[in-house]
């Protein structure tokens, strides 16, 4: 039994366990330092930059949620704009029609996203490949049509303004919103990370790779697919809720094909199957210079060229690039001894 391994097994096993703990300590320190910086950030930036940062947080969440379906589960479904819109509308309408306070409305928005996610997961069981892409496009457009035409409920094509966004009675300005967004995003991203490093994350990838093989291991393929879509819906729904609060307005044209491109570009450029990549991609593309927005079409041109570039030269995106150069940042699909 000696031919396939180059040296005795036992000492190697012991060494494998030791090296990662140094890695883990480093990773923990890096994360802690980042969190500290993030907490004190508002004191050093002006209101406009604060707004941009808040927007980045929203898109980080979108990217992370979308990545679960197209990166980990590997299904091409143009669902992100749909979940995003459902989250925003559910949140805004709960506040506008039912007078609910923002935190509760945001929970409703998140749950609505999850519900729609699960529902969209069902046709995804029957339909795959380009058919799934097409049907998801259609569903997204149906949703938008509903926003425009169900005027009595959704206020129609012009959209509507949210009532004041308050937390515990206090009106939230951009800096206040930042802390709320940050807390929500950190929680959601941490939960997603934990999920992906569990048997569920591995199940997603196994299903993506070879469904019969996954089934032969006892993985319930249909359940796994619906779970992935539902989770994606939850996270992107939460992003939508925050988006509504960010702008104080919700309108149908924010959730069309232009959003789809943005979400796609962020996830692809960030790297399919990389949470860190999704965060990096969101920060990069949201922080794109205002210059891009002043000329019609320029944003589309730049993003699509970047996307094409990534597809040709850097299929693993930014996340892959970082993982290659900084081993610390490699994302695993399991939790080992000592991990939280």
């Amino acid at each position, binding site marked *: 039994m000696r031919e396939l391994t180059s040296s005795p097994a036992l000492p190697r096993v012991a060494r494998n366990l030791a090296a990662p703990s140094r890695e883990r300590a480093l990773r923990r320190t890096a994360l802690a330092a980042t969190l500290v910086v993030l907490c004190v950030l508002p004191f050093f930036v002006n209101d406009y930059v604060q707004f941009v940062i808040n927007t980045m947080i929203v898109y980080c969440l979108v990217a992370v949620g979308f990545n679960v379906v197209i990166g980990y589960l590997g299904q091409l479904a143009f669902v992100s704009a749909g979940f995003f819109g459902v989250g925003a509308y559910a949140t805004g309408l709960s506040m506008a029609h039912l007078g609910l306070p923002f935190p509760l409305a945001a929970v409703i928005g998140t749950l609505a996203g999850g519900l729609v996610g699960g529902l969209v997961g069902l046709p995804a069981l029957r339909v795959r490949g380009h058919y799934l892409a*097409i049907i998801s496009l*259609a569903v997204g457009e149906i949703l938008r049509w509903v926003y425009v035409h169900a005027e009595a409920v959704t206020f129609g094509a012009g959209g509507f303004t949210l009532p004041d966004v308050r937390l515990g009675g206090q009106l939230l300005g951009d800096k206040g919103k930042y802390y709320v967004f940050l807390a929500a995003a950190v929680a959601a991203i941490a939960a997603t990370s934990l999920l992906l490093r569990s048997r569920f994350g591995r199940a997603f990838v196994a299903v993506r790779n070879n469904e019969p093989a996954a089934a032969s291991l006892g993985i319930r393929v249909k359940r796994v697919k619906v779970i992935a879509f539902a989770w994606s819906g939850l996270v992107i729904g939460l992003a939508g809720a925050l988006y509504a609060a960010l702008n104080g307005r919700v309108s149908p044209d924010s959730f069309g094909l232009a959003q789809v491109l943005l979400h796609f570009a962020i996830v692809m450029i960030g790297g399919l199957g990389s949470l860190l990549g999704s965060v990096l991609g969101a920060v990069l593309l949201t922080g794109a210079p205002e210059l891009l927005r002043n000329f*019609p079409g320029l944003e*589309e041109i730049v993003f*699509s060229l970047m996307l094409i570039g990534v597809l040709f030269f850097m299929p693993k995106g930014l996340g892959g690039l970082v993982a290659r150069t900084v081993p610390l940042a490699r994302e695993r699909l399991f939790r080992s001894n000592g991990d939280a």
Partner: protein
Amino acid sequence: MLVQLLVSGIAVGSVYALVALGMTILYRSTTVVNFCHGEFFMLGAFGVVVAQQLLGWSYGVSIVFALVLLLAVGVLTERVLIRPLRNAPFVTLAMMTVALSYLLKGVSRFFYGREVVPLPPLLAGEPIELGGAVLFAQDALIVGFTAVVVAGFFVFFQRTQLGKVIQAASQAPRGASLVGINVPLLRNAMWGVGAVMGAAAGILIAPNTLVYPDMGGHMLIRAFAAMCLGGFGSFPGAVLGGVTLGVLENLVGGFVSSALVEITAYLVIVAVLVLRPQGILGEGRSVRA
């Protein structure tokens, strides 16, 4: 009224059929689902606008210009963007076409911004009376052109040697190349043809719908609906699906509510893919995993 709806439906449906046919050519020859086809459609119309208004050429010359332009675009796209990725998974190729679609949309938005450009009809003149319904000359042209294209297709693929060769090459590329058929060249040519068909559709309908950068996305979903309804990957299916969709939209608009016209195509997609994914004429086809 029913006759009028049918007649208008067939006219609009013919455009859908043309676009769907073009997309089906691309799908059959390279198994790529071209999410960028709407932009070929849009560029056809814009090509005429640019040639007419910027370069001052006559309508006829502008049309030729636009068609040649799109032939080049189709051929280039296949050579530069699709061929290098031919062994990549479906997701990558699909995303490539999505990215290209946004690139083309962005470029036209860059030059035409928020403008919506009108285009005069190719065939003006008195509308034709047809058994209680009115058919505009332009619409008659659309239907006629589509009928000619469809007939041409049939004759070409079923009756000519070259047509059969092309079919063989799509179905069994390796065998075809062993026999000496230049498969890459064929694929390249097919993309050119498909793009030109998309452009032709755009040019034909632009006088009715006006020309604007987002007209592609709107058409893309309708073409998908036509392909799914008729049977994805089937030529007769694309035509049947397109015309049926056009008629359906008009019937819905006439008898139910005009607000629902917009959403008819989307509902058709959902209904067909959930209930009978192979469409009306359903066929076996290769699907990239």
